[in-house]
């Protein structure tokens, strides 16, 4: 697969095997700058595995993953520079404060971080009054926000999110949706897995991960990234 000029990231023939068991097979796709891509699929179909591979936390059995012209599997150190990742489980240090967690993930100094929290992208998250709070005392929604903020603390061009709104209440889901919209409006690129209709509506395109491979899913005729009936039909067809 050749990378055209607008393509920001592209995956080529990514496969993952655990022993003889194949989890992912020949996954290929391209994402342009500023796009929001959703990956749909049943529970346990390999969405998190795919995101773990694309974020650099898991090695693939084969395949290539390009950021512009650089194959990130060959330069794993570049993953943290270009890709912010929010896994399903919040990657936070529970005993430490909100500020400490942000400080760890932030690329600049502590002073710059405070500026970022009042003026930059992190300002949107409204953590300024909670900076000294231990993470363990935060609600599930706040922890999720903090995880996203930590992933964005380095201002990466791409954000991967694994079910960002799972098990959160309606208002938290709305907040998270708003942060993601803001990130997209700032020129960011998002790849997310989700079962939430609201989150999927943010996406320009969707893919369905089924039978270990990724298939384009968007209802292009209607321009709807998530057609529930179509989704259920496709799942039925493949099961």
């Amino acid at each position: 697969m050749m990378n055209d000029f607008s393509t920001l990231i592209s995956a080529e023939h990514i496969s993952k095997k655990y022993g003889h068991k194949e989890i992912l097979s020949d996954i290929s796709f391209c994402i342009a700058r500023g796009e929001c891509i959703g990956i749909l699929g049943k529970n346990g179909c390999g969405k998190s595995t795919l995101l773990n591979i694309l974020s650099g936390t898991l090695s693939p059995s084969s395949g290539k993953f390009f950021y512009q012209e650089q194959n990130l599997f060959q330069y794993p150190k570049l993953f943290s520079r270009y890709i912010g990742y929010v896994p399903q489980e919040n990657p936070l240090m529970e005993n430490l404060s909100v500020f400490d967690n942000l400080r760890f993930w932030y690329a600049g100094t502590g002073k710059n971080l405070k500026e970022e929290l009042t003026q930059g992208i992190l300002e949107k998250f409204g953590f300024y009054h909670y900076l000294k709070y231990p993470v363990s005392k935060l609600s599930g929604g706040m922890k999720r926000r903090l995880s996203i903020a930590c992933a964005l603390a380095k201002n990466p061009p791409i954000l991967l999110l694994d079910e960002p709104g799972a098990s959160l209440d309606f208002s938290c889901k709305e907040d998270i949706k708003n942060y993601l919209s803001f990130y997209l409006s700032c020129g960011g690129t998002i790849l997310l897995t989700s079962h939430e209709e609201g989150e999927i509506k943010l996406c320009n395109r969707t893919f369905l991960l089924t039978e270990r491979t990724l298939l384009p899913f968007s209802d292009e005729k209607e321009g709807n990234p998530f057609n529930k009936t179509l989704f259920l039909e496709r799942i039925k067809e493949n099961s």
Partner: protein
Amino acid sequence: MNWRSRKLFVYLQLQLKNAFLFVPKIFLIFVIFSGLLFGIGIYGNQILSENSSVEELSIAVVFPKKDYLSSMTFSFLNKMQSVRELLTFVPMEREEAFEHLKKEDVFAVIEIPDLFIEGILNGSNVPAKISLSEKHSLENILFRNLLDAGVSILGTAQAGIYAVDDILFSYQMFDSIPEMEEALNQIYLSFTLNRDTYFKSKKVGLTDHLSTIQFYGVSFCLLLILYSGMAIDNFFKENVSFEKSITREGILLFFSQIIKVISLTFCYWILLIPCFFISSFFPDIRIHLPHLSISFYFLLFPFLFSVISFFYLLHEISQKSNNYILLLCALSTIFLFCSGGIIPKQFLPSSIQKLGLFLPSSFWLNYLKKIILHTTTLPILFSCLMLGSCFFILALFLHSFSNHK
């Protein structure tokens, strides 16, 4: 400073902060268990102070056939007040004597050679063969020390008599020799029976050159530090997702975990400094820590490192917080008991004594004793670091294995 080094430095700072957040819990555990362990210490001290546990020593004596002189001498010794209080010489056949020694019914077998008493009288001194029991009981230690005292004083007495003999010979004062020998024998005999003189310089005890307070102080501190591990049950509890995320940042599992262990070690080390600093102002405590100096504090660091690594290993074995606390409490108590930290090992069955040799608590007790006596050597220091490293590597292996699973 490059990106990765900066990340590591920030991570170290945060883990230090994380470790110090546990100080109130550690302090609380210190306070709660201090009371409990203080009670154990006092009870143990009472056990050591009581003499009722010391039995009379039975010594088997194997005489050569028809050596009536030797048998008469030992029967005379059995009647002596000072001997009777401690020992009973039981005449036996050789096979029977060794069978009793094997069963630990007797503490030693003395094999008397032919012409033993004649040898003493004419100065040829044919030595008797003494076989001791392998058992490390209090009685055995006493007997060994008594024997050492006897041999040492007898040797000194003989050397003194022979030296004066030689001088009198060289000055041709032949007539004075019998008179002088008689006088010296009298003096030495009175001196030999006075065991106080020997034990003034030589200490016989169950606490390996430590005073009872020092001995229980060491056990107390070790058990307190081990129990304080309960306070840090959440410290090693790691969010797998966070671990994977920091690996992406270039902080490998080895570095992230060693930073955690060192941070907690440093926290404990810092906590102990004010404790010793305050205690150094109390003469009653200061007297039991005669070698308290800056090196004392530095020597504690490897010890703390090995203990914290041990906590980490237990955490990885138990996986869950409750299991960790149960395992830590049980192992700390059992280990210290088997190592002779609660009741001196001489009172324990020999199988437990042997088991105790392989437990880390024995090493830690020994290490702390050496710090107090100021006899720590570089190999011991190195061994302590090695022990900690072994625990750490094993824990790391279990950690990565469970993550992989």
